[in-house]
């Protein structure tokens, strides 16, 4: 789960990481009041869940009170990569001596948290990794002991010479690691981390990505969830135990298992069709889930045919069939439905469908299912 810069900074402040003077505003008037408190000039930054906001015009400096209101009203309501800006961060402008990158990320290859630091701060770390990989210093952390002082010092010595600044940076690195662990993050990043001309150190920007699996033990962080209209539907589906992602095609898919659901999309594409969605009903066997799944498919008005591709394991075919029969009569579905049921209780499931006299296309294989679903949707070869 992504959270905003200002929310990540709240986590950093609690962890003892210094953050420059700033406040969050939802209106130009609020922005003005914050600027008055902080003192001019200020930097005004869009709070959105995408990168590249600077290039999109979402970060600007205001030198007068009039400019604060003007820029804030410009950025608020701005559309950045399809996302509406609803909040801005108003912060003091600091005199930067040096910009640094500090980050902690879970490395799936080594199964360890990895600390990364670079003297090339303020730009995308992926860019640095491509152009000047030698400027990134990495360290694998042993989760049993955490980031040790001498390890943090060694990393900090790659960034600064002055021992006071090195020690302070090492201490901040250790706090960053603790914040990452304590919030069950998969990424915690300060970019840029700055040394000011006055010799002060600040986290000027902040990014934290939280592990969804860990959120159950952080109800306070769960509350920070903010969704786009598209994500709201996905979240609603998730609460019903479904994994749903809307796509651009016209074939609505209902599949059990994420790998099979992705493959179903791939096979539709292979035969010249376009899937309307990714939908995994998960591993349990509940007729209600089929009904819920059909509900989400029907919200998408582009859908011209529906394809249920079920390989029963934990999921039982008879439960799927029962759910389908009930849903078709309740939801009054007029779209052609293609069904492939195989695996656990396959015979029972097929019998339920036969007896219901539902007008469906029954297929035996995935390839056949894709071809029929494309044909009845009126597309493809």
């Amino acid at each position, binding site marked *: 789960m992504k959270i905003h810069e200002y929310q990540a900074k709240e986590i950093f402040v609690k962890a003892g990481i210094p953050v420059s003077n700033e406040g969050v505003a939802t209106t130009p008037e609020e922005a003005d009041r914050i600027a008055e408190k902080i003192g001019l000039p200020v930097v005004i930054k869009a709070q959105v869940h995408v990168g590249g906001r600077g290039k999109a015009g979402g970060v600007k400096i205001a030198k007068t009170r009039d400019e604060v209101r003007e820029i804030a009203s410009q950025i608020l309501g701005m559309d950045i990569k399809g996302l509406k800006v609803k909040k801005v961060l108003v912060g003091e402008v600091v005199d930067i001596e040096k910009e640094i990158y500090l980050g902690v990320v879970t490395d799936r290859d080594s199964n360890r948290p990895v600390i990364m630091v670079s003297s090339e701060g303020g730009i995308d770390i992926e860019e640095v990794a491509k152009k000047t990989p030698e400027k990134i210093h990495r360290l694998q952390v042993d989760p049993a002991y955490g980031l040790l002082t001498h390890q943090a010092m060694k990393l900090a010595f790659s960034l600064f010479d002055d021992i006071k600044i090195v020690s302070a940076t090492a201490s901040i690195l250790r706090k960053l690691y603790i914040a990452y662990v304590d919030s069950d993050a998969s990424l915690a990043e300060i970019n840029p981390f700055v040394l000011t001309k006055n010799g002060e150190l600040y986290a000027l920007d902040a990014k934290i990505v939280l592990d969804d699996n860990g959120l159950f033990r952080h109800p306070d962080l769960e509350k920070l969830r903010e969704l786009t209209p598209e994500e709201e539907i996905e979240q609603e589906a998730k609460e019903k135990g479904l994994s749903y992602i809307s796509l651009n095609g016209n074939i609505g898919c209902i599949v059990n298992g994420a*790998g099979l*659901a992705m493959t179903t999309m791939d096979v539709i594409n*292979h035969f010249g069709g376009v899937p309307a969605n990714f939908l*995994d009903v998960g591993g349990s066997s509940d007729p209600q889930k089929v009904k819920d799944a059909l509900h989400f498919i029907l919200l998408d008005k582009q859908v011209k045919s529906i394809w249920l591709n079920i390989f029963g394991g934990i999921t039982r075919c008879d439960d799927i069939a029962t759910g389908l029969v009930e849903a078709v009569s309740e939801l009054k579905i007029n779209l052609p439905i293609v069904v492939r049921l195989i*695996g656990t209780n396959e015979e029972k499931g097929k019998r339920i469908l036969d007896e219901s006299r539902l007008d469906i296309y029954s297929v035996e294989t995935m390839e056949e299912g894709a071809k029929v679903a494309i044909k009845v949707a009126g597309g493809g070869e």
Partner: protein
Amino acid sequence: MGILISRDSRVLVQGITGRDGSFHTKSMKEYGTNIVAGVTPGRGGNKVDDIPVFNTVSEAVEKTGADVSVIFVPSGFASDAIYEAADSNISVIVAITEGIPVLDMVSIMRFIEGKDCRLIGPNCPGLITPAECKVGILPSAIFKKGNIGVVSRSGTLTYEIVSHITRAGFGQSTALGIGGDPVIGTRFVDLLELFRNDPETEAVVLIGEIGGSDEETAADYIKETDYPLPVFSFIAGKTAPEGKRMGHAGAIISGGSGTASGKIEALEDAGVRIAEIPSDIGKFLKEEFDGA
């Protein structure tokens, strides 16, 4: 034979009294798996399907000699269940549970380092050595004893491809799902190594998906070690959009890495034949072994 489990395995079920645990215990037992014990704290002394239930894993191991454990414990308690199994000299731990926090897995991997213990999963369907032993939730009917090793990051997609293998007239030495999470106990390379040393395995089918770089690492291993067995592969998620998590926590394309095309390219470069659609795997095996 096959790898990791056999008819000699003595299997323990952690969370045996739960809904999924009891259902699949029955199914495993029907398949012929030698289930010797169950564990649910507070339910020691009871029996499930004639299987004795203990309060702790160490007691179950001491009394029954269990050496394989399968975990059905809910996500909030599953991490400790894995620690407990590793602490009690279990040699193969199979974690079916979905939703374990990634940093818990990081610590667990550290904990089992240096222990004589292998973790499969979490968030996986388990494994089967057909006609001998099933540990997990895989549907028994589609498997057949044979010489194809199958390893997959997915669950139902594994069943789909296994059914093509079986329909083409081939059986499996061992088939397993390693799980769809970012941090997992056993990876493709570990299993390629095990299959290489298994006299019964004559070919490997590797089922990958978008996200991470496990397929690329496997490709490097196959190339560098001059892997002696033919390897066939299918990669799911060719048409998945970037930045969206496709069900599995590990299945996400980010910043252009973890794409299906990158994985396919790496595997092809290592001499692995790639299936366009799942049924191709059956055809490839026929061509390889029957000259069809």
